[in-house]
Every structure is written in C-alpha cells, then in structure tokens.
C-alpha cells in the first residue's frame, strides 16, 4: 500500500488484547446481525462493517469516555466499540422496546448519548457539520472533548463534506474526520466518480490540512493515528482528516451479495482481513492460543446471550409512537 503510513505501535499487550477482543465482538455481532436478517428478525435495512472492524476498534481505544462519536448508517461497529452493550443494539435492529431507541430509530440511527455515541446518520454527509457543532460546543465550554466523525469514501463528493472541512479548519475545531475508504459506494466504484485517487487524503490540502493515509485494516496503525489526531484536537490545534484504507467483505446492505466486485479484489482483501491478521500478531507477540480461544468463546457466548435477550423484548405500542417528538415528551403540535 504505497504512501501508507506504517504503524509504530505505542500500545502495550493488554491494550492489544482488548483491541483484539473488540474487533472480534464487532465481527461476531455483525455476523449474527446478518443471520437475524436472513431469519427475518431484522425487518428494515442494515449495513454491516465486516472487514472494517479495525477502524472502529482502534479509534474507540484512543478516545476518552467523554469524547463523541458520529457515525453513518454503517454504524453498528462504531456504536458497540464505544461500549454500548450488544443487547439493546440487537433489539433495536429487531424493532423491540428494549432497543437502544425502543425501535424508533432502527439500524441506521444507533445513538447512545451515555456512551458518547451521538448518533448514526443516514443521509450522506450530514453528520460532518453536526460533528463540527459538538466540537464547537467543547471548544466554547472548554471541556477538552473531541468529536470523531466517520464516513465512507463515496461521501467525500457531497457538499456537506466540503462545508464541514472548511468550517472546522477555520474555527480550529476539535474534530477528527475519518474516511473509511472501502473502495465502493453502493454498487459503484468510488474511483469512477471521484476526481482524485484518494478521496480524502488528496483533498486535505484544500482545507490546509495534512494528507493522512493509513492502513485501516491494522488496528494498531489506526490506534496510532487516532491517538495523535485526537491529541492534536484536544490541544487546540484543530481538525484532522484521515483516510483509512479498508474493505467491506459483504455487500452494501441487507442481502446484497456484492457480486459487482471482481473476485480477485475480494480475495486480495480477504487476505488482509483485520481480525485473523491481528490474531496472528498477538500470537507472534507471545499471547497463547488458549487465551485467544477463551476470548473467542467468551465473545460468542456474549453474542448468543444478547441475541436471546434482544428477542425477548416487547413490541412497541401507541405510547411510544407519539412520544418524544418534542422536548416535553409529547407528540402534539396543537393545544
């Protein structure tokens, strides 16, 4: 991957084991979400992050609990990585009362303010300016909080991206923009509709920012760049724009088999799968196979338990339907 920064791991082994566990949780969660979709438990749409887990895990590890995540519709991983339990996320996908938002938001809008997950946004580009606003609030209130905002490579051609980047740079806001470049939009290759080779990195200079391109399938490399960008933001030195190269193993959403992608490309990227790759690294660093298997069993048990808990949730009723349109809790526009 020419031009890619090489990771200089600053993490210690305990952190690395956590990073592995986190990536594995995201992977196993998503695999189960896919099964649940096929079993018709998940009714709407859902966009999985299988293959892209290193980015969510690496960033979450570098963030403080008080920092903020802004995600897209492809937001399960980012939500879970911040510590949101699996049960309410599964339940949200299934539209149950024990869902993270009681079923009102669905897969594309996962939000858990308690965990700093300030929302998942389903309109391309919209959350970049919104992340600026949170960062502005931190700057104004001097709280040292940082907003981290994730989006895809295809999202870099929409107006809101441009406005947010310029705005953040001019106001020197504590926000980190992370472009997860998985090469594809829905069914169209991003390079076919983008004027530069690296949708984000090749545009950083247009906002006076450094061009940063990393291997997004290496959780250590992600952690590394996340740590420095977040530190920079916290120090008052303004925003960063990071492009992390990665790949989604499956289709864009739901049951899309992703057949439009050349087999060789898929194979190339399957070989770079962040989860087995990280597992291998841990083995090389001396972690035992047994310890890893124990983690793996633990995660699978967690996914099983959460699935059952989620399925046990209730079906939302009329009370929820009209609730919380307004801050007084009501849904009424008239007296």
């Amino acid at each position, binding site marked *: 991957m020419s031009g890619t920064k090489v990771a200089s791991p600053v993490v210690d082994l305990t952190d690395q084991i956590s990073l592995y566990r986190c990536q594995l949780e995201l992977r196993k969660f998503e695999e189960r979400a896919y099964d649940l979709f096929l079993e018709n438990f998940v009714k*709407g749409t859902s966009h999985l992050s299988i293959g892209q887990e290193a980015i969510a895990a690496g960033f979450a590890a570098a963030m403080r609990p008080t920092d903020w995540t802004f995600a897209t519709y492809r937001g399960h991983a980012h939500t879970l990585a911040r510590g949101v339990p699996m049960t309410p996320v599964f339940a949200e996908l299934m539209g149950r009362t024990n869902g993270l938002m009681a079923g009102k938001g669905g897969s594309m809008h996962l939000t858990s303010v308690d965990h700093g997950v300030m929302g998942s946004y389903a309109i391309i580009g919209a959350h970049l300016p919104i992340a600026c606003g949170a960062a502005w609030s931190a700057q104004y209130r001097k709280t040292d909080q940082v907003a981290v905002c994730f989006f895809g490579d295809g999202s870099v051609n929409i107006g809101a991206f441009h406005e947010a980047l310029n705005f953040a740079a001019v106001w020197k806001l504590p926000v980190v923009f992370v472009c997860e470049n998985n090469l594809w939009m*829905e069914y169209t290759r991003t390079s076919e509709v983008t004027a530069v080779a690296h949708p984000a990195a090749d545009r950083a200079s247009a906002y006076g920012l450094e061009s940063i391109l990393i291997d997004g399938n290496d959780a250590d490399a992600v952690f590394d760049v996340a740590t420095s960008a977040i530190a920079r933001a916290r120090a008052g030195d303004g925003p960063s724009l990071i492009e992390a190269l990665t790949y989604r193993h499956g289709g864009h959403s739901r049951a899309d088999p992703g057949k439009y992608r050349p087999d060789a490309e898929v194979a190339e990227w399957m070989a770079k799968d962040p989860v087995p790759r990280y597992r291998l690294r841990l083995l090389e660093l001396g972690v035992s196979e047994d310890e890893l298997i124990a983690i793996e069993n633990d995660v699978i048990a967690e996914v099983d338990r959460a699935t059952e808990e989620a399925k046990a949730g209730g079906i939302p009723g009329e009370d929820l*339907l009209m609730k919380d349109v307004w801050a007084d809790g009501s849904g009424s526009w008239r007296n």
Partner: protein
Amino acid sequence: MAQLTFREAIARGVAQEMRRDESVVFLGEDVGAAGGVFKGTVGLFEEFGPVRVRDTPISEQAILGAAMGAAMTGLRPIAEIMFADFFAVCWDIVANEIAKSRYMTNGQVTFPLVIRSGNGGGLRFGAQHSQSVENWAMMIPGLKVVVPSNATDVIGLMAASIRDDDPVIFLEAKALYASKMDVPDGEIVDTLGSAKVLRNGTDATVVALGAMVPKALAAAEELANAGIECTVVDVRSLVPLDTTTILREVSATGRLFTVEENPRLCGWGGELASIVSEEAFYDLDGPIVRITTPHIPLPAADALEDMAIPSVERIVSTVTKSMNS
C-alpha cells in the same frame, strides 16, 4: 398483456421514451450497470449504453444541477434521486432554480425534465428514508408533481412526464415497487392532471394518492359491506390538480375524506379541504375528514410504522365513525 411489477413498469416507461427520443438521457447514483438500488432502471444501461445512462457521484446538487442545465439547452433528462428524503440535500436546485427560472426569465428557458424518486414508507427504513415528500414539491410554484398508484399508470404517466415541457417530480411509492398487475402491450401515454374515479359510491368520496390508493379501495370494499358506499378517487397528479373531477365527486356524495401518507400538517389533503370548503361548501353534508400519518417523524420498527401510516382498518373506522355521527 403482460404481468409487470411497479418497478419494472418504471424501466419500461423510461425505455419507451428513450427509444422514441434521442434527447432523453438518464442520470443518477447506481442507475447504470447496477440497474438502480430499487431495480427501477434494470436494462436501460444495457439497451442505451453509458452515454445515455450515466452513473454519478453522491452529489445530488450536481445531479439535479446537471439535469437542469441540460434541460435548458436541448436535452430531456431524467434524474434519479434514490430516496425522496434526499431532496433535502438538493432542494435549492429544485425549489429555487428549476422551479423558478422559467418564470423569472419571462419564459426564455424551459425545463423538460423528470426527477424520479422512491417515496414514502412501509419498508421499515426509518425517518430519513421513508418520508412522503409530495407536498414539499406541491408547495413550490413551478413544479409538476406526479404520484402513480399502479404499474400501468407508471408507464403512461412517466411517458407523459417525459414529454411534458415542464419539470416533473415523479414520486414512486416504495411500498408499491413489488406490486404487480397486467399491463397492456405497446406504447402507453397518459395525461397529467387527470384524476381517476376508481369506484363509484353515493355516501362519501375518498380521495387518495400513491400507496394509499389500494388501501382506500380495500377500505371501500369493507365499508360497502357495512352499507357505506364510497367513491374512490386516485389523484395521480397534485400539480396540475384535477379539481374538476374532485369537486364533482365530492359534490355528488356530499362528503370528503382524504387518505394521505404524509405527516399531517400542510398535506395536500389540507389544500383539497380548502378548495372544497370554498367552492363546494353548499354541497357538503358533513365535516371534511383527513386520514394521515400523525405529525411525527416515521419510526423504524415495523409495529410502529404500521401504526403510523394510514391502514385499511383506520380508513374504515374513521369513515364509519364520521358517517355515523
């Protein structure tokens, strides 16, 4: 006659016109080889090639700006906005530029273009992918607004929209994409601004649009069993609006019910209510009643979404209650 789904009808309508007229071109996200996210453009890329059927970046302002600039210089573009909710990111081009430029220039420019989009709920996509935005467009002077309710109408109204010299917002109910019907063979060309009376009754007139039309018809059947005979009118186009048909049918029964998928406030039903209560006031025998989605963002959970959008049961119970009170 061939059985066709609503989604297949779109591609057929577009292809019919692209064959006839070289100036008809098509652009949007994933509309080419992929055949569209809702499979509404399957076959177009293969038949008309990449010069006439073009994939775009995720840049809705550029998509519609391109359609506008092309329309004012001799082409007849069809642009796809994947989900109607995304009109919000390019509303300036629609509402301020396309809609107004003919008038502002005293008729120097003309905008023969169609913007088609997947509209409305029922697919559990949540609040940002399920809106019914027909009223956003109806509200803006200079836009025509077409909302078909079945596959045959899709073809005929699509052809009429493409041939029309004004900008048409063509909204396809996502909930109907999979619906099927027998469609006549050969060219189909319909007329904008013509509502259709789908059923005749003597007691009340139920006016519906898009995905609400089959529900209104089903409700009318149930109501008939209970002794309430309804006329059902499919509006089909909000602009131009066939007030002649609507006023005639409401005057005939003396009662108006609207069935609207949109959230309540400022829906087209309100506009109809104001037209009827001004122009057919003395023919009214009772209140005008609107059946709408409540004025809330649309929830994602299936149970909640089903409660929100007008259902056959809600239409039946609302009409029954109002007719018996």
